[in-house]
């Protein structure tokens, strides 16, 4: 792996008329990385990808591919390929000819072309379908053809625009692992655009979370999940309980509840974020924990989910209890029962409150 990033964005901005699609953005995607851009629809992620591909040009800023500035370079001269959401296969060409399209453009000698096309089709396990037309294939197969077509020219970077969106749930899960496997085998940098946090978490080496034209956080899936930088990231990735609190002297107080387990290092208004699976559900007579009342609970196979109201006017706290652990307490539980909830301060993130307001709005817009 070279130290030059495969793709680097510096101050890249995109405006369409008066509206700003992408605020000035810096981004580095390392060589050979599986990098996801995650965000709700309309957050600018597709625009960023289309600028990298060369279908849109940035209003300001520079984009470099492998250290070379490519702003103004047409798409066909950029060493990258794209996997379109609609697959964009050529309907008049067979699977084989679709995959061979780029090699024919490059006038690759016939024998080499044949071998490379065969290798690409083997990679996606579609060798036996080489003579079929795209219309004769299932959605999942078309997707594989599109992938073979995108990697056959051995590009530096492959851009994937929500490629699994049109597939059914089951196929999507299979394809997630398959994409990851192929990316590793090929050693090609993948930039994957999606609004599906689960997809991004499953496949990515790193994720950039975007909202309203801005990259809010870049990090590994565990960083993004365990150490969200702000309220939007915390609530967009997985489920997260967000408690408005005021911090002083190293403790956080929630109105009507009192001191909650957290270790704030600032004073003032904060948000305490804690994941449902980090919260323990305790009997009402336990010695520690915050007293609350169960308003709803449900058995979801591998875990129980309970919604617990604590304090006066706060939204119920979601608590996720593994089935093996929660069985004793929850099996006989009635809604309305008194319980206690507790978590360790290390599992609570203290987030700044200002970003919280605008991010919460963003989320409403996205929803």
């Amino acid at each position, binding site marked *: 792996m070279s130290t030059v990033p495969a793709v680097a964005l510096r101050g890249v901005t995109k405006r369409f008329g008066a509206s700003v699609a992408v605020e000035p953005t810096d981004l580095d995607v390392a060589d050979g990385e599986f990098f996801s851009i995650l965000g709700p629809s309309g957050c600018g992620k597709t625009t960023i990808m289309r600028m990298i591909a060369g279908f849109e040009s940035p209003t300001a800023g520079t984009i470099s591919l492998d250290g070379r500035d490519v702003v103004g370079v047409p798409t066909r001269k950029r060493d990258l390929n794209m996997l379109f959401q609609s697959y964009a296969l*050529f309907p*008049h060409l067979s699977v084989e000819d679709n995959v061979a399209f780029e090699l024919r453009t490059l006038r690759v000698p016939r024998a080499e072309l044949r071998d490379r096309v065969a290798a690409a089709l083997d990679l996606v396990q579609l060798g036996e379908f080489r003579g079929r037309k795209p219309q004769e294939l299932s959605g999942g197969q078309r997707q594989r053809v599109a992938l073979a077509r995108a990697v056959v020219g051995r590009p530096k970077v492959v851009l994937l625009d929500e490629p699994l969106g049109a597939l059914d749930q089951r196929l999507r899960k299979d394809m997630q692992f398959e994409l990851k496997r192929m990316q590793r085998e090929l050693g090609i940098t993948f930039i994957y655009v999606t609004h599906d946090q689960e997809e991004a978490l499953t496949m990515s080496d790193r994720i950039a979370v975007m909202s309203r034209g801005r990259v809010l956080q870049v990090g590994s899936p565990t960083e993004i999940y365990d150490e969200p930088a702000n309220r939007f990231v915390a609530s967009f990735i997985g489920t997260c309980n967000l408690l408005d609190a005021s911090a002083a002297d190293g403790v956080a107080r929630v109105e009507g509840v009192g001191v909650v387990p957290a270790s704030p290092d600032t004073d003032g208004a904060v948000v305490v974020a804690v994941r449902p699976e980090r919260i323990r559900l305790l009997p009402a007579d336990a010695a520690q924990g915050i007293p609350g009342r169960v308003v709803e609970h449900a058995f979801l196979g591998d875990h129980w989910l309970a919604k617990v109201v604590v304090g006066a006017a706060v939204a119920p706290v979601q608590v996720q209890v593994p089935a093996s652990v929660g069985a004793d307490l929850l099996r006989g539980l009635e809604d309305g029962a008194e319980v206690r909830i507790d978590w360790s301060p290390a599992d609570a993130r203290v987030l700044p409150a200002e970003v919280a307001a605008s991010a919460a709005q963003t989320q409403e817009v996205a929803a």
Partner: protein
Amino acid sequence: MRKVIGAAAIVMIAFLYVPIVAVIAYSFNASPVSYRWDGLTLDWYAELFQDEPLLATLRTSLLLGLVAGFIATVIGFLSAYALHRFPIRGKGVLLAAVAIPLVIPEIVIGVALLRTFSTVGMQNGLLTLVLGHIVIALPMATFVLLGAMRSLDPSVHEAAADLGAGVLGTFWRVTLPILRPALLAAFLLSFTTSFSNIVISTFTAGVGTTTLPIRIYSSVRTGLTPELNALGSLMVVLTLVVILVVGVGQMRRILAGSAP
């Protein structure tokens, strides 16, 4: 209720096809009058192929249909491509302008053409016929092609660019092949429009460039001859052959006006 609808459908189909079947049957009728059946004969076909003036009008109509159909398809393709691909100002007005010959009565177009040609001093002949037929075929060709282009996935062109093809390469290797069935459809429609047209031809044909429909229409005055039944039968067969060659599935798409 179902029976009534079924019966109505049968009546409709009979109404559509009985005249055509009758023409074919009478083309083999030995009697020159249609109310009597005197047995089978091929005389009318023989007579048809010896009727040099009639064959001359057939040649004129075929040539006219091919030339006007081809030009209308080319112009229609270019207009549709421009209207579809480029952000043109006043697109709605242009589309309406393309559609206008479809809604203006042909007789008006015919008169207007005649006036225009005589004003600029053009003699009626093959050229005026071709120009007139392009006017009426163009809207159909344009709309068939525009429909096909609109039903195309726009990212196909981006994919071609992404895979290294330039503007020309994309056009030759992607746009044109994908639109081939629609181009064929546009041409066939234009050809048929031209071949069967009588009103525009009446105003734009000159001496020696009488078209087949004009010839047939004027022979009504002297009475329809059985050889016209033979000619009609041949055309029906020819049409069927075209449909079979093009393919029934393709034909359905053509008539539905969409891309493959």
